[in-house]
């Protein structure tokens, strides 16, 4: 099989694939139904499709592609709010390029830009702050987006804006949190998951301790994984090993990047600037308790939600979209009625087509359009 040869260490990859099959055969649950392992992070989803990792696994092990792509879970209502802010004549609206094409109910940010709104792509919130310093007569709004990986960047930028007394800078905060979302998935009756691949770069910030409730309370194993193909295979192997040995613990495959205590400075900045929201709306998943953060009162001057009156409406996704069912692993991307027809990466209906980390775009781009018969281990080795 061609994929294994692209691995950094094909020998090791072959060994892991073989041993994953051996371990799966030892797990009683796998006798009746395939084991369902969720990779939470969109970066993992991308690697899994690019390297054909699903095709290397025995039929008794299935991967469920989780909601850990922040662009993919942006609800329409929030995109509409962005467009409403961006269309204020005094505003320069700054955003990561990834969010430009996410459909809103009227338009995307890209369409707003085409119709005259001053929307600018930035690489970093610091670039947005620099634009604010350069344009004192304009209101510069940064679209804060992402899990705990990008949260410290936004927090540190707000702290810098305060220090530098930049009065025309604010953040439209849409940062979301990982753990309440995993908890909501575990509490959902739609799925029966057997284990989690934990997100690597979120964990680099928050550390490994916050995951312990998954093993302790829900009795599911967690392995925090890097995003190289070999990292993912090894992490899957570690999950299966726990399941075969009837253990559940939080293990850290990505220890070279993820310290157990996380990043103290980053956590401090988050703590200073943000507080947990009661609930936050997710595309496809609906409202999830405590799954987002907002800007603390002390920094109200930098909070675009307070400076601009945003409609903040909750808008249902188009009827044909089945993003929610894909996000929950209830159906596979190609089973969505509009997949590859009305919904493609060029003309996305749902947001899972917008980002390369979205499961639908990944399936589409790498041509895994149907339930191909998984390769057997003999073919792999």
């Amino acid at each position, binding site marked *: 099989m061609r994929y294994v040869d692209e691995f*950094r260490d094909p020998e090791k990859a072959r060994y892991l694939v073989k041993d994953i099959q051996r371990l799966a055969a030892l797990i009683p649950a796998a006798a009746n139904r395939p084991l369902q392992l969720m990779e939470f992070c969109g970066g993992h989803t991308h690697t899994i499709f690019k390297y054909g990792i699903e095709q290397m696994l025995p039929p008794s092990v299935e991967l469920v592609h989780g909601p850990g792509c922040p662009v993919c879970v942006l609800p329409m209502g929030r995109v509409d709010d962005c467009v409403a802010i961006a269309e204020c004549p005094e505003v320069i609206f700054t955003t990561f*390029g990834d969010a430009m094409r996410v459909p809103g109910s009227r338009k995307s940010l890209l369409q707003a830009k085409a119709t005259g709104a001053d929307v*600018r792509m930035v690489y970093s919130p610091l*670039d947005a702050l620099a634009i604010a310093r350069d344009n004192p007569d304009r209101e510069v709004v940064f679209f804060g987006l992402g899990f705990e990986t*990008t949260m410290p*960047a936004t927090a540190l930028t707000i702290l810098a804006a305060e220090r530098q007394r930049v009065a025309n800078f604010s953040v439209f905060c849409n940062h979301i949190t990982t753990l309440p979302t995993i908890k909501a998935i575990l509490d959902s009756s739609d799925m029966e998951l057997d284990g989690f691949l934990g997100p690597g770069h979120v964990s680099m910030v928050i550390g490994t301790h916050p995951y312990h409730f998954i093993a302790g309370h829900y009795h599911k194993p967690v392995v925090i994984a890097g995003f190289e193909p070999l990292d993912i295979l090894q992490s899957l192997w570690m999950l299966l090993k726990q399941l075969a040995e009837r253990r559940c613990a939080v293990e850290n495959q990505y220890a070279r990047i993820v310290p157990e205590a996380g990043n103290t400075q980053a956590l401090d900045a988050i703590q200073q600037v943000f507080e947990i929201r009661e609930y936050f709306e997710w595309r496809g998943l609906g409202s999830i308790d405590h799954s987002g953060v907002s800007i603390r009162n002390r920094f109200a001057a930098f909070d675009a939600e307070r400076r601009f009156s945003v409609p903040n409406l909750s808008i249902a996704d188009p009827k044909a979209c089945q993003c929610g069912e894909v996000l929950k692993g209830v159906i596979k991307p190609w089973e969505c009625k509009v997949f590859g027809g009305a919904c493609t990466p060029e003309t996305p209906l749902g947001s899972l087509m917008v980002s390369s980390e979205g499961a639908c775009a990944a399936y589409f781009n790498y041509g895994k359009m149907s339930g191909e018969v998984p390769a057997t281990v003999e073919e792999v080795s």
Partner: protein
Amino acid sequence: MCLGIPGQITRIISARERRAEVAINGVRREVNIACIADAEHPAESCVGDWVLVHVGFAMSRISAEEAALTLDVLTQLGEAQLEMDRMRESGRTGPMA
């Protein structure tokens, strides 16, 4: 934005403000190092260090080997080129005339 990109710190612009210049895949850009500088690693001592950069912030110190491998995978995923484009185009695009 979630995967980050490795770079090497080439110069400290302001130790107090935690601003450094980082060479990322041959391109130099300013990066904030507040998350990797501490009492044990004062800003001045960070020159030469390899770091993983997320949206303009160095988030983690990595080995030179890890940096090379990460860049390799990011290139294969198409993410390295995207990230370089994002850096290059940042803030340049004003309203469409």
